[in-house]
């Protein structure tokens, strides 16, 4: 069973639909017991970091997520979920969960369209199990105005170029997070979700 953490953000049902299409059992939940007894946990989301953190704190989901990480349950952040696991986000100057050291930064104003919206490549830095079967021609669907900037280079699994070169997949131990939306990225995206469903949380 994969738990999809419900923190009233959008896009939760899309992740659930994609997992069900792959024949995986999944449930959207905010129940700490359910989350902690899951085989895997997905932390998706779209929206603003500040509001998301308010909801997460109000529902005490921050403590639950920290426990998931400590118990080595494979954990995947998606889009906003990637910003939320860093120390902070420049969006609303929000303090985030601090699971991976770093900041979600705003794209610099350099004549590029913001948000970064559409299909883009990822360049593998680490041969992580989550990217098994994904080649350099594969593209993924992005929509975001802030990008993850981890402090430690070893937490960068893949990068993407859009004005700047930013970390589009990050991770450490049993945590992995994609800035793009695998649930909206066609077959290559579904492959990543499938990879996650088989991942034991070890690198």
């Amino acid at each position, binding site marked *: 069973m994969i738990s999809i953490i419900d923190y009233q953000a*959008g*896009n939760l*049902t*899309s992740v659930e*639909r*994609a997992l*069900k*299409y792959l024949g995986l059992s999944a449930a959207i939940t905010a129940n700490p017991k359910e989350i902690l007894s899951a085989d895997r946990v997905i932390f998706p989301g*779209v*929206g*603003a970091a500040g509001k998301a953190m308010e909801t997460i704190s109000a529902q005490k989901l921050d403590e639950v997520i920290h426990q998931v990480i400590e118990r080595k349950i494979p954990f995947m952040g998606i889009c906003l979920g990637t910003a939320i696991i860093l120390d902070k986000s420049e969006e609303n100057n929000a303090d985030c969960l601090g699971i991976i050291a770093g900041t979600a930064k705003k794209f610099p104003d350099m004549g590029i*369209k*913001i*948000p*970064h*919206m*559409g*299909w*883009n*490549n990822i360049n593998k830095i680490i041969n992580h199990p989550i990217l098994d079967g994904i*080649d350099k*021609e*594969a*593209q993924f*669907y992005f*929509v*975001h105005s802030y990008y993850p900037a981890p402090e430690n280079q070893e937490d960068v699994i893949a990068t993407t*170029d*859009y004005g700047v070169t930013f970390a589009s997949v990050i991770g450490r131990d049993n945590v992995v997070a994609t800035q793009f*939306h695998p*649930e*909206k*990225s*066609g*077959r*290559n*995206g*579904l492959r990543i979700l499938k990879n996650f469903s088989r991942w034991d949380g070890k690198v």
Partner: protein
Amino acid sequence: MLSKRIIICLDVREGKTTKGIKFEGNIDIGDPVAMAKEYYEQGVDELVFYDITASSDKRDIIIEVVENVAKNIFIPFSVGGGIRSLDDMYNVLNAGAEKISINSAAVLNSELISQGAKFFGSQCIVLGMDAKKVKPSFRIPSGYEVWINGGRTPMNMDAVQWAQKARDLGAGEICLNSIDADGTNTGYELNLTSMVSSAVSIPVIASGGAGKPEHLRDVFLKSNADAALIASMVHYKQYTVSQIKSYLSKEGIAVRERI
């Protein structure tokens, strides 16, 4: 590198895909769910469903269509037509759409954009705009006027100014349809697309007039559109998405080919 997006538009009336010319004379051309699957397999980057169902008691049909599409295809898609409230937006997003597109309702009540952006995020809110060429005037300095109600009602509003206002209100993207070019298959309105695309920092989808792959090349190279909307050229099976993409790729335009 960020790819230019090819977006297929399906007009849906009472649950069937339909196609009209210059907003008139629609004929039914298929089942939107089956067509969505087919285009997904061909490698389309995104889909748009416009609900043009006239009677309000048949509006729920579109929700069923959205749910069935969302179960079967895993690329972003938006839904427009008949969305007038936050509840309408919620229903469509909850059924599985990635974005909602608002057009006439946003002109008549611009708070719909800011409210939608606040509750669901800017990335969900696409401003749809129908524009028609006019003689430049004090009220319409760009020479493009905004029309609403499916191209039936002129609003004496400037298209470029409206795009900028919508961006300020929180729209995440603009789908810009040229009434003059729509249904002609003679190419996009490059000047209009270029003006709006350079006036706003958010992505612009060019719409109206696509008849062959060269038209997409022109709108990407000459008007800096971020995405191009197509309909009849694929609905009538003149081209497949992969044919269009391989042409664009040969012309040096970045497109997503590995699907």
